[in-house]
């Protein structure tokens, strides 16, 4: 469905007159999103004993926000006067226009409450799915993430695609001591600083396991790659070749770290064996040019990267084992082309990057074979895209609306929401789906890593 919507851009390759800026001639300038039907979902007030009323209201607010942010469902508000006792009145909900009805109840002792969610198909008048979630206490750090996981399950029941609420975004922002790594939940809550280097920290990248973040730091004087362990929150040196080590990225299986390092004054892409903690292997060979910002395909067999080897800055794709680099962005003669910051979608079908349009960076996506280039933004500066695990949402840094910060875009519907307001927030990286250890029954259908379609 996603690939269908994205494949609409024509892939004409005919030669054209040079343009005055770097917009490739076949790109669809402007935001031409398709109108997408979103089935209506309604979630009335959650049933709960009086002592759990406050908890129940918080639960409802978090889940409703998550369902809305999935951009796959239309959240409908409902009056509190609708009778909920007795058997489900499908006719009533159908009349209100709902396709899905989500009923919640909080039960059990106040110190170990359980949230029971049941999703009803209003159209076919049947119970779609039901599940119980153990809730941590209201102020517990895992409270919100548990609800995000629950909301993601509801999205999966309704749409067959797991939601992306139980995720976090790492990014760079200014702190008193310099640039540090920060993290925020997918719904904009839980913002906190992770690194404490009082230096320059750059380019955070989530490990697929979701418990570690690699990043570049100047903390030791010589820029190198460090790894933050989120539990307990300590940072240690990971890779330090002579010169500058930068732009780390994990392979999807977590076995390799891709990064860039200085070779004879220029920058080349390397991989490092994380399992054996050794052996940096050079992947790119371009004398007199820079190659950087690697990003792996979901199967790890290829990687996209950024290089100025043609005298312009472009995105290339190359086999991880061997093979030559293939240009996937359009070379435009005698233009100041600046395509940068590639991120390969976890679903594999698109590579997001930012490219200059009249000197201003905008978010684009393109297929890994260079077809179907599509421009996604046009307001303000828009930079450094990173895909959510659903391969449908992108977080990026933007100055749109005069309000700099991080924004989330649904590439299917074109809906955009603010995530973090910050003049200097940048270089966001979206995590894979994060574990919630509070799921009753132990196994989460979402899996540890990115999407499993």
């Amino acid at each position, binding site marked *: 469905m996603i690939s269908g919507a994205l494949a609409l851009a024509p892939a004409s390759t005919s030669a054209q007159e040079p343009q005055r800026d770097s917009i490739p001639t076949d790109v669809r300038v402007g935001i031409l999103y398709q109108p997408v039907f979103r089935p209506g979902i309604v979630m009335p007030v959650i049933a709960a004993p009086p002592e759990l009323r406050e908890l129940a209201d918080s639960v409802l607010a978090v889940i409703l926000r998550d369902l809305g942010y999935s951009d796959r469902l239309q959240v409908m508000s409902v009056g509190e006067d609708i009778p909920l006792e007795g058997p489900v009145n499908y006719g009533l909900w159908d009349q209100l226009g709902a396709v899905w009805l989500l009923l919640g109840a909080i039960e059990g002792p106040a110190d170990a409450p359980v949230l029971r969610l049941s999703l009803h198909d209003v159209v076919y008048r049947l119970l779609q799915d039901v599940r119980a979630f153990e809730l941590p206490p209201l102020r517990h750090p895992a409270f919100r993430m548990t609800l995000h996981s629950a909301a993601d399950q509801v999205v999966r029941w309704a749409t067959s695609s797991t939601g992306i609420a139980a995720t976090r975004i790492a990014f760079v922002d200014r702190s008193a001591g310099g640039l540090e790594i920060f993290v925020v939940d997918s719904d904009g809550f839980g913002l906190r600083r992770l690194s404490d280097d009082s230096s320059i920290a750059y380019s955070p990248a989530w490990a697929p396991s979701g418990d570690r973040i690699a990043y570049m730091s100047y903390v030791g004087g010589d820029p190198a790659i460090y790894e933050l362990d989120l539990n307990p929150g300590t940072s240690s040196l990971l890779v330090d070749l002579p010169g500058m080590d930068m*732009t780390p990225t994990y392979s999807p299986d977590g076995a390799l770290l891709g990064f*860039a390092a200085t070779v004879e*004054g220029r*920058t080349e892409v390397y991989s490092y064996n994380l399992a054996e903690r050794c052996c940096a292997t050079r992947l790119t060979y371009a004398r007199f040019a*820079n190659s950087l910002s690697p990003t792996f395909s979901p199967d790890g067999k290829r990687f996209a990267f950024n290089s100025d080897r043609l005298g312009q800055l472009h995105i290339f794709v190359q086999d991880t084992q061997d093979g030559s680099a293939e240009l996937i962005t359009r070379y435009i003669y005698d233009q100041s082309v*600046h395509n940068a910051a590639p991120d390969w979608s976890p679903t594999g079908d698109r590579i997001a990057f930012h490219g200059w349009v009249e000197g201003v960076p905008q978010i684009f996506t393109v297929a890994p074979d260079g077809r179907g280039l599509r421009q996604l933004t046009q307001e303000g500066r828009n*930079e450094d895209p990173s895909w959510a695990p659903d391969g449908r949402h992108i977080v990026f840094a933007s100055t749109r609306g005069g309000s700099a910060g991080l924004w989330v875009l649904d590439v299917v519907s074109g809906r955009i929401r603010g995530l973090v307001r910050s003049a200097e927030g940048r*270089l966001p990286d979206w995590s894979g789906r994060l574990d919630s250890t509070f799921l009753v029954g132990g196994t989460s259908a979402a899996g540890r890593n990115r999407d499993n379609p």
Partner: protein
Amino acid sequence: MVINFKREVSWLSAIALALVVAGCGGAPAPEPEPQPEPEPQVQPRDEAAEREAREAEERRRREEEERRRREAERRRVLSVIAEPVHFDFDKSDIRPDAEEVLQRKVSLLREYPGIRLRIEGHCDERGSNEYNLALGQRRAESVRRYLMSYGIDAGRFATISYGEERPLVDAHNEEAWAQNRRADFPITDHGRLEPGD
């Protein structure tokens, strides 16, 4: 120089002593009441002291002059070293105006072989954050190579890139960008700032 000077001092003292002895020899016969110190005895002593004071003053003056000269030289060295070189947008090659700046550094680095530098590459804010790190590194490297090509030992330079994170001018226009696309040259070891050291 220092030894000669000391010799000169001891020679002068010897003369002064001789004059004192001569004065004693020319005195009238001893009297029961000793005379107050006679003029001839005092005069040579004062002359010697004055001369010594003059010499000391001269020395101080010369030292001060030397100190000022060195301070001026030191300032000259620091300003020649500190002068940044600038780059064209998205380029790392050495411009003709940068070459003039670097030539001044070359002769100075030859004159003061003890000086060690860090070459810092910087970029304007327009390019991508990560690409600017690589570009800054290339700028630092291209400066290092230029200096090496004039025979300056590679071991005297470290390079680092700060990308766009250390702008010189915190503004968002062409003029600021031109100032920010640069290499800086902080000194990591002054040597003794002495020629030939």
